């Protein structure tokens, strides 16, 4: 939609494509990352009965600016024995992986990078691209902590992709689509049409589906949490064991890239969960724009609801961070292979049977 308007306005598809490709970065990721850095510090402070940053601006709202300035002024250290090409590519690759996911995330009904028919699969596939970057960074750093962190990260992300996919498959069975825009439109109008409450179809099946949808939601939430290396699944970064994990040797803007990628990933998976289970950009109570007959208000409302849903799940990720201690490596694998995957499989089977009914 935006692409069509722009290309007819500019008369050039390439320039329009580039502008559309940059929009999520400047409209969503950077403002979100700046807000999330502050929110993370404030949430963690309040949860620990502290105050958090409060010296820069009103209640510390300018703290992210100070952080960004600090990161930009820092020396870009490249240790002498690193594998330089790989070392320099790794942060870019990690960021590319998490940024590429934003291409298919439907922010509103008109603002979406591309209406991919395979959107759901694409996001999951491209976000596992991050593993390559992390492994590359850990390997090329020539540092034992980086390498251990990278290996753990690879093992973790690859393991936790399986339950994520299994839950996504249950959604595909019900809705029959992987196009995220279609999936969002499928759950339109009111909140009881959301997938977490059994989808828009009426009848006994809808109510039978609800418990299995909740199980699916819990599984996908846990496994995506593990995929973005957040606490309690932060063993690749485990600062008390591995210094800083795979990004031990990185400094300055390269570290900032990893940091940005982590926050972008957090939002990407939260947006994915919001889209799949909580109606995406759809409002839970109908639209003011429809009520008052103002057409252009609807996309803004959709953007609002999408941000609220996405940011809520980001907040829950921060909440969990200050609630749970880090898992051991074997516990991590136990959670994935002994609990999440069997539950996801059984869930898939039952949902499949219910849909056939």
């Amino acid at each position, binding site marked *: 939609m935006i692409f069509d308007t722009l290309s007819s306005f500019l008369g050039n598809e390439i320039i329009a494509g580039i502008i559309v490709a940059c929009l999520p970065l400047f409209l969503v990721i950077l403002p979100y990352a700046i807000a999330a850095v502050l929110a993370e510090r404030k*949430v963690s402070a*309040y*949860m620990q*009965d*502290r105050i958090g940053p409060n010296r820069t601006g009103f209640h510390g709202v300018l703290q992210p600016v100070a952080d960004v300035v600090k990161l930009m002024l820092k020396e870009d250290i490249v240790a002498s024995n690193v594998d330089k090409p790989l070392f320099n590519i790794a942060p870019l690759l990690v960021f590319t992986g998490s940024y590429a996911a934003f291409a298919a995330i439907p922010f509103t009904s008109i603002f979406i990078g591309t209406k991919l028919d395979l959107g759901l699969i694409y996001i999951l596939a491209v976000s596992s691209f991050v593993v390559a970057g992390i492994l590359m960074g850990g390997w090329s750093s020539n540092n034992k902590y980086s390498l251990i962190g990278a290996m753990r990260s690879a093992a973790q992300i690859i393991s936790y992709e399986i339950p994520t996919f299994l839950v996504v498959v249950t959604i595909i069975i019900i809705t029959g689509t992987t196009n995220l825009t279609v999936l969002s439109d499928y759950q339109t109008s009111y909140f009881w049409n959301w997938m977490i409450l059994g989808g828009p179809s009426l009848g006994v099946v809808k109510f039978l589906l609800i418990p299995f949808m909740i199980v699916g939601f*819990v599984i996908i939430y846990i496994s995506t949490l593990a995929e973005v290396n957040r606490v309690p699944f932060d063993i690749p970064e485990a600062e008390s064991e591995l210094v800083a994990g795979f990004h031990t040797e990185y400094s300055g803007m390269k570290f900032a890239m990893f940091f940005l990628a982590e926050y972008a990933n957090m939002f990407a998976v939260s947006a994915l969960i919001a889209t799949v289970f909580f109606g995406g950009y759809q409002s839970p109570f109908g639209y003011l724009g429809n009520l008052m007959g103002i057409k252009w208000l609807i996309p803004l409302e959709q953007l609002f609801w999408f941000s609220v849903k996405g940011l809520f799940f980001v907040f829950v990720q921060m909440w*969990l961070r200050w*609630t749970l201690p880090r898992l051991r490596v074997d516990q991590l694998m136990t959670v994935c292979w002994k*609990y999440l995957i069997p539950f996801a499989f059984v869930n898939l089977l039952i949902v499949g049977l219910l849909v056939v009914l």
Partner: protein
Amino acid sequence: MKQYFLDTWSSIWTVLVGMKITFKHLFTPSVTIQYPEVKVELPERARHRLYVNMDDCIGCDQCARACPVSCITIDTVKSVAGEDLGKTSNGKKKVLWVTKFDIDFAKCCCCQLCVFPCPTECIKMTPVYEFSEYERENLIYSFSTLTPAEVAEKKKNFEKAEAEKAAAKAAAAAAPKPAPAAKPAPAVSKPKEENPNT
């Protein structure tokens, strides 16, 4: 099999319990005391920086001798006849000019041992604890109220008086012979005086 489901349930349930606790803390008022603006109330008899009230100091040097880390340095000059140094607040007559009363707070361990022997209670602990400096020399506090010129004057006065006394003594020694038996008497009596003290 039953245990497996119980484990699953208990893990989810305990996570929810933990989340409830952290969520409560989100709204608990913070316990942070914002130090430079807000200060912790110190205990009543907090021992921090020393203060010396020089109006009361008689220069007896007892605090310097009590100090376990020798951070107090006191120099005194005797006053000459005719100089009135005034009285301390508890009625003791001052006879010494305290020309130097330096306390090195880099060494001071805030043990309060110097406070107890003071006969006029002029040295005391204050609750001031913010006195950090960039140079170690700046931590040597000089409490003496006399200016260097005054110190030089007092020293000169004293030396002059001493010289006069010596001259008078020499003159006295030259005229009559002093009694020789008077000298050994204090040497014998001294240990007797010390015994009850120890």
